[in-house]
């Protein structure tokens, strides 16, 4: 909750830039051509590759967003 006390006018500059970077990363990861690399009949740990890739990178993205926005920032 201590984060909430930092209510303020501006965004922390670096945080904002990191979030844009995450957006760009997501745009690349979730689309052709990277997507096509994993779009094949294969399994890893018994899970279809495409399914694992999408959910895995999605989770990584969410964790990155949480770390960036809830972190100390500067």
């Amino acid at each position, binding site marked *: 909750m201590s984060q909430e006390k*930092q209510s303020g006018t501006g*965004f922390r500059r670096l945080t904002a830039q990191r979030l844009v970077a*995450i957006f760009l990363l997501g745009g690349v990861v979730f689309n052709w051509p990277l997507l096509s690399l994993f779009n094949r009949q294969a399994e890893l740990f018994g899970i*279809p590759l495409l399914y694992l890739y999408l*959910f895995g990178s*999605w989770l990584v*993205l*969410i964790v990155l967003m949480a770390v960036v*926005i809830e972190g100390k920032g500067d």
Partner: protein
Amino acid sequence: MLQGWSIVLASLAYLGVLFAIAWWADRRADSGRSVIANPTVYALSLAVYCTTWTFYGSVGRAAATGIGFLPIYLGPTLMLSLGWFVLHKMVRVAKANRITSIADFVASRYGKSPLLGGLVTIIAVVGVVPYIALQLKAVSNSFTILLHHPDIVMPTGLGAVPLLQDSALYVAVGMAAFTILFGTRHLDATERHEGMVAAIAFESVVKLAAFFAVGLFVTYGLHGGFQHIFDQAELVPRLAKLMVAGDSAANYGSWAALTFLSMLSVLLLPRQFQIAVVENVNPDHVRRAVWLFPLYLFLINIFVLPIALGGLLRFPTGVDADTFVLTLPMAEQGEALALFVFIGGLSAATGMVIVETIALSTMVCNDLVMPVLLRWKSLGLAERRDLSGLLLEIRRWAIAAILMLGYGYFRLAGEAYALVGIGLISFAAVAQFAPVLFGGLYWKGGTREGALAGLLAGFVVWAYTLLLPSFSKSGWLPAEFLSHGPFGIELLRPQQLFGLAGLDEISHCLLWSLLANVGAYLALSLRRAPDAMEARQANLFVDAPVGGGSLSSWRGSARVADLLALVERFLGVERARTALGRYARSRGASRIEELQADAHLIHFAESLLAGAIGSASAHVMVASVVEEEPLGLDEVMNILDEASQVRAYSRELETKSRELEQATQELREANERLREVDRMKDDFISTVTHELRTPLTSIRAFSEMLFEDPKIDLAERSRFLGIIVSETERLTRLINQILDLAKLESGRADWTPVAVDLSEIVRESMESVSQLYRDKGVTLECSLPASGLEVMADRDRLMQVFLNLLSNAVKFVAPGTGRVEVDVAATDDAVQVSVTDNGPGIAHEDHEVIFEKFRQGTGNNGTLTDKPQGTGLGLPISRQIIEYFGGRLWVESPPPGSAMAGARFIFTLPLPTTQKEQT
């Protein structure tokens, strides 16, 4: 065994719980301990995004296309990563401008245009109707299926069901009643619904829990975990294909299109805007939502594919994949779980319907009905005392009408599509708001016409390429419309417009509609510069100033009583007085009546009204009691462009300081000159006194000698007296000359130039000095032109100059061999007179010095001439006189060795014009 009544009872109990939560949250809010002022509640309430589309439809989509259900959730994740910019800014702008809906937002942005608000409302209602139909279909289907428990029976074709036996109708009526009871209990000045948000957050938890329960049941109950279920699916060729996506360009294209579409929808759907922007308590809550909402989406999707595969394995045919979430537990005797799933689906549907219809009814009331009613003079609404009841009434009817429209669409077109297909039609409709909304949020150039044209163009293309085909597919329009185009014009086939084939219908619609939308928006916006009102609003939205924008731009006059009466009419007396009383206290006044009707109060009143009737109507109503002086475009531009003002100030400052510097420099120079003059004056006085003392000393010395020694012989005595007389004469002459000079320099010399004959003056002067020359044995020669030369001058003064020059010359030549020549010659416009001697001459560096006061020249040999034989004032005086008559006086040294190698004094005098004509 599930009976119909037990399902209905469970449903009612669930709705009762929602009511209790809403009531509790409202009570908490009233006592100042808001439940929803919490970032986690905010993030959970955002999950109203997940409707029955997600709850039932995702599995259906996954059963048909495998991973194809996922872009709808990846898009919002990407948008939320930009939430720190986009959503946060929208919330700030909405709070500063008391925005109550997306229609209000757009209308307010483009100069509070009622027309624009109305258009957005119509698009939103028409666009969202299929989405509401989707919820009705899902709930009525799940109810029908559950009713036939334990048999798995698919709902029959709806066309066959008589209207009054159609469960969807009762679902629609029930939901309308529920939403009316729930959402329009009272009119809130800020159009915020604390209780509703709390209930929505609770519903988000319920639907996630229900879906998770099914997921766990299928994956770990029916199968041995993820790996097992995938392994089994691999064995069925039809299912194995679901593990990969179609590897074609079109497939990746529609993947990207769906991602983009859902990115926009998560903020632009009326209910998403309502929850994310209007109901937001604190902009900083966006921070947690940025990751928590995507995480929610992640969790609710993780079991979609396993359930779809489990369903396909369990029911190879005969069961609609959209119902797997419900039918799988039913088939496995999971009675309680099936009921829980039904409740979860109900919560997904009610959440969506409540927020969506409340948002839409607010828009219909504020941006469609009220502007018309208020302008309808014969109704006399503008004079009615209390309108708050009327506002609520309009909203209730709007909610009922919207749900009936949804039901109508469901009857007409609901059968032709799967759940997701219906939802995407709505997504594509609200995507039409994107250009005007995001354009308006980041670009100041958009105008009212541009926004109207963009929205209209996009909406028409959407309706033509997506809405009408959905009617056609369900047989309501002839099938030829789709296959051969209207009137057989193949080029206009709705889903291959202008022959564009190879895209799925959503990508196709998105491409053409956004192309038309953005094109029209830009083209019409760029036709003219924004007017004063648009520019002011653009500034408020694009710059999103902290603290509500500049009130200084408002000018006008109003009375407090008028404003109070106005607010009372729309909010009710009690609520209006409470709000204004609080405002009065915050301004330091004890009572409302003591308030000043200034720009702040008017702004406050307008925003209070905006909460009730929307910004466009509020602006009109306030304008009716306020005599607002219209703002000129120039003034607004001046106010807006503060940067340029600052620049102008600094330019001015720069100029001023430069001028100051210049003035300082001039003053310094003047001061310098004054010091110089002062020094010269001191020098002059000391020189004068020195010069006066010399003869005085001599007179005094000889007088004392005569006085003290009476025995001096006569010859000696007369010599002394002679010296005294000559020194006295010299003193007199000196004093005369000093006075003369002072007169000349002060310009007070009174002489009158008349025509004088120069030759005569020369001759007279030579005569008067002839004795002096003869005494010293100096030759004086003269060459004069025959004719008389007349110049304009003062006779006595000119003579004074001649005498001075001649007596100077004789002083410096050697006795006996001395020789002085006077030469007078006339040029075109002047006469030149020279006096040349054969004395020692004047050193070149002294040529100007000798014209200074009390300065006397040195000889050409560099030694000082003998003790002053004159006063040292003759030449300065002469130069003054000549310059007074417009001539020049200077000295030259002829080269040594020539016949007259002494000094040559020359002066010129201008000839009068008459003289010139004669010559």
